[in-house]
């Protein structure tokens, strides 16, 4: 139930961000700082989410099959593979490494 609460709040706030853009006066666009922060924060959050999902295991750091997924995804992206292929490469690499005994 509590997860529902945070989930719906996230939905409301996501819509609020979007709506704010349509109602703030255009002159706010002239302050480049806000759009810069939105941009650097997007990069920072996605980099952080990548790393957390690759090496964090609760509050510990772990080197396991997910590192193989990270490498496989990077190779797929360097080869300009579409999103879904990149995701499948990551899953395939992790599954394969586990089958070979590396957790």
């Amino acid at each position, binding site marked *: 139930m509590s997860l529902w609460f945070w989930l719906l709040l996230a939905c409301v706030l996501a819509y609020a961000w979007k709506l704010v853009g349509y109602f703030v006066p255009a002159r706010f*666009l002239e302050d480049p700082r806000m759009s810069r922060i939105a941009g650097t924060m997007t990069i920072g*959050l996605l*980099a952080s989410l990548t790393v957390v*999902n*690759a090496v964090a295991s609760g509050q510990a750091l772990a080197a396991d099959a997910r590192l193989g997924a990270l490498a496989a995804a990077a190779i797929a992206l360097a080869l300009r593979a579409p*999103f879904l292929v990149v*995701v499948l490469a990551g899953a395939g690499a992790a599954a394969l490494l586990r089958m070979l005994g590396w957790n």
Partner: protein
Amino acid sequence: MKLLASPAVRVGISISIATGLYGVSFGALSVTSGLDIWQTMALSLLLFSGGSQFAFIGVVGGGGSGIAAMSAATLLGMRNGIYGMQLNALLRPTGWRKYVSAQLTIDESTATSTGQTDPAEQRRGFWAAGIGIYVLWNFFTAVGAFAGSGLGDPKQWGLDGAAVAAFLALLWPRLKGREPVAIAVVCALATVIAVPFVPAGVPILVAAVVAAVIGWFSHGRSDEGLEPDVEPYRGHHGHDGGRHSHRGNEGDQGSQEDHDGGRYRRRNGTVPGADS
């Protein structure tokens, strides 16, 4: 079908299919991170912003709290506010259209619209991409959620690796140039350092603060990182094998320079004086 003759609508449809399809991976990962099918669908229907949705389930899947998941998703959604300002200036929607436009304001619909120069085409591009992605993204989320809930042990299928790959794929197109790479590296390091010291989920918020501080004090391009997950006009930049090539249907609409010009204005002109 006059609509299909519009280059912006064609781009909108192709980007809808490409983006909608990866709703499958969101749906499957969401149910294996511990959300149920209804929660998964609520995210796609109501939140409707790929990066934030992946962030929410990524934090929950990593053992983070609901409030950390909500915070990460919300911070990642800030860029949609910037897109909203750009689109409002460009399309000037009125009445109820404003509220619908807002919900459809995401990376891809913004990129499809701002990549056009003719106001009518900008409008068509926005609605074609926005509605197309909304419908397909939700459909494929449901497909993924039903498929994912029958998978059993997600680790056996490497689904935790799929999540890693999904985040890297969302980040990748934004890493154009040295500065975004440096930001990504600094934030990744901050995350790794924070992991042992704070509860799960919080390291992501630490990285967000670091990124915001960098954004506040630095003076690079004003739209750094504001790049779509899928680049609709990639073909025009000459570094692609033609995956999204739309060159064949532009003869009646305008020259290639027109399209690049629209893109160029978005990057360098909509925020006066922002670019050096």
